[in-house]
């Protein structure tokens, strides 16, 4: 059926697999298998494979120009991959636009002169719903967001935040099983951000897969269970968020002691800095945290607090991208 073009064995495997689950264990709602897309001289998407299971918020990360939009356009059926296959619910996606995908692009847009209700019904029907189904669904969503009074307003009369809500409804109104959100929180105030966040989590709990593209790493930490990090068209990091953070930890600990000075570390750890009584230490290799604690206690020093410093996703992102740029 599908033959894959090989791009040669000399391409070094730079993908750090934090999670090494076999395909059989993962129930992939969306599966990308060695997807390649070329534009002119540029390989925008280079042998990317990943799986997004049901009921999952999946982060699609990468610096600007990494190939995220190209990849999203392939998944949504706007463009076609040059080689490789995209499966949605086990079926290969062809160029036909798939009604079980909801896509909210980073560049937002609605028909300015059209009324909100009319517009949402139109967009929902374009996804294959009947007029009655569309009207019912639009009504439900607008009630949920408490914006029924906007039904007859033109989009151009709405504020940016308001039209952002309408845009979100347009993405999910046809009840898609895969929801692709490109920077969904940009331009939203904290209240509306939380509202949308709750809805996203709710949709996830109801079984939808959410492919979430963002540059805001704190949102990745907060929401995503899995990620793939793309740089220059290649997947440079992918796996479960928990495991990636574990993999990237540098054995750093934050320590508050009383007294805060005059400890001998004796090769258990290195003191990196001390500020306002908070010391940052790096555990020596092959040492465990309990050992350093015992060592400090044995010096008759009180431990006020002790906690491991996990790398932020921001650091992981920057490190991984810089490393892959230098390779």
């Amino acid at each position, binding site marked *: 059926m599908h033959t894959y073009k090989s791009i040669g064995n000399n391409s070094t495997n730079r993908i750090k697999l934090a999670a090494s689950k076999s395909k059989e264990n993962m129930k992939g709602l969306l599966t990308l298998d060695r997807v390649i897309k070329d534009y002119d001289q540029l390989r925008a998407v280079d042998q990317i494979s990943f799986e997004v299971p049901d009921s999952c918020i999946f982060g699609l990360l990468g610096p600007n120009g990494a190939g995220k939009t190209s990849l999203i*356009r392939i998944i949504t059926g706007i463009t*076609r991959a040059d080689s490789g296959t995209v499966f949605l619910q086990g079926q290969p996606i062809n*160029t036909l*636009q798939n009604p079980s995908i909801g896509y909210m692009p980073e560049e*937002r*847009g609605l028909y300015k*002169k059209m009324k909100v209700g009319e517009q949402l019904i139109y967009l929902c*029907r*374009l996804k294959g719903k009947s007029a009655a189904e569309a009207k019912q669904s639009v009504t439900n969503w607008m009630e949920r967001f408490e914006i029924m009074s906007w039904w007859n307003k033109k989009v151009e009369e709405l504020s940016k935040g308001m039209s952002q809500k309408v845009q979100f409804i347009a993405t999910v109104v046809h009840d898609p099983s895969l929801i692709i959100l490109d920077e969904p929180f940009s331009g939203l105030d904290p209240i509306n951000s939380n509202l949308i966040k709750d809805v996203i989590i709710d949709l996830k709990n109801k079984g939808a897969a959410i492919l979430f593209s963002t540059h805001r790493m704190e949102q990745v930490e907060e929401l995503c269970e899995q990620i793939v990090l793309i740089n220059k068209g290649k997947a440079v990091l992918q796996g479960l968020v928990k495991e990636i953070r574990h993999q990237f930890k540098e054995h750093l600990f934050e320590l508050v002691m009383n007294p805060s000075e005059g400890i001998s570390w004796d090769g258990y750890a290195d003191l990196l800095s001390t500020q306002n009584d908070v010391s940052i230490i790096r555990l020596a290799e092959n040492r465990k945290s309990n050992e350093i604690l015992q060592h400090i206690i044995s010096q008759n020093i009180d431990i006020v607090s002790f906690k491991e410093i996990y790398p932020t996703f921001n650091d992981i992102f920057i490190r991984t991208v810089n490393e892959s740029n230098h390779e």
Partner: protein
Amino acid sequence: MNKLGLIINKEYSTRVKNKKFILTTLLTPLGFLLFFVVVVFIFSHESDKTYKVAILDQSGTEIVMPESNSRFIFTESNLPLDSLKSQCKNSEIDAVWLLPKFTGVDVKHYSTYYYTDKTLDIEMESRLSKYLTQSIRKYKIQQLQLNQTELDKLNTEIIIDPEPVQENVQDKSSYTSKIATILGGIMGYVIFFIIFLYGAAVMRAVTEEKINRIVEVIISSASSTELMLGKIIGVGLVGLTQIVIWLVLIPIIYIGVLYFAGFDQSQLQSISTNMDPNAMDKMEDMQLVIRELANLNWVKIFFIFLLYFIGGYVIYAALFAAIGAAVGDDINDSQSLTMFVSIPIILAIYIMFQCIREPDSSLAMFSSMFPLFSPIVMPALLAFDPPWWQVTISLILLLAFGYFVVWIAARIFRTGILMYGKKASFKELSKWIFTKQ
């Protein structure tokens, strides 16, 4: 409803329900009417202005005084030239027309002098010389003792009635070509107008959608070709709706105004008689025209007209849509690209005017086949009854070319619609045609 149907429906209904559409549709016929009223006003206003001309007749021929009318009031005067001139200065009269000594019947050139500080425009000059020519003609007839009725016999009106050589071909009268010319001109012009107006509307709609960024949402739901065709067809139907409304409204308004607003037929006719003072036997002419109009094969003309209307509109609207998709974030970028589509349309209208003057020329033959021109040229030629093979070949070429243009436009469209930033160059456009999706 399938996606194409949904898009057509959306494009159609949002436009037709738009207040601006309703206003322009209703106000345009009124605008035309206003234009018409202004034209009538201009013509009637001009004839209100009268000139008082004193004729100082020194010709010695007892020239018959030209009759005063709404335009000129002539008075014969025996006063000396200087005092007439001072009357001119005092604005008592507008001009003094001095007719010097007329030396005899052999005179072929007769110079007269017209004293005025006002301009002597071409129309006035020709009228005055026409008066004098007739007066002198009468004087010469009298002097030469010629018989007026015999002279009248010298005038013969020539009618060239075209007759077919082949049998079973409908006989044409001398009016056939005149009517065909007018009818053809109107049909060609209507198509020209529609292509320009609604083709540009398609382009604007595409660019707006692209600048709005909604296009990315739409083409993740429907294909770019469906979107393009939906727009072309939707806007085309809006155009048809508007034209049908106008076809009904314009005659109603025209008749309404004629009967209720105090315009009478004679005033309107005075315009046409001004233009064509030699028109005579009006009743007989009208009957001939009506007979000729009835002789035309209206069903055939209408059907073929409709085909060219659709073909021409689709070709140009597809080109406009491709341009709309190719321009960048600035809607004004489209101007330089639009030119390349506008030029063939404007050329076609000039060719059309030439073709209805010479419907059998090779220019008419060629341009009625060439698909960029044929939608405007061929409908104009229909009333001249072009041979069926010419129409057939032209229609086949139109269909093939239409299909080709839509294919190319769709390929430019699907790439261009997703490109943001700068407008595309021609090199890029041609590359887009061949890029894979």
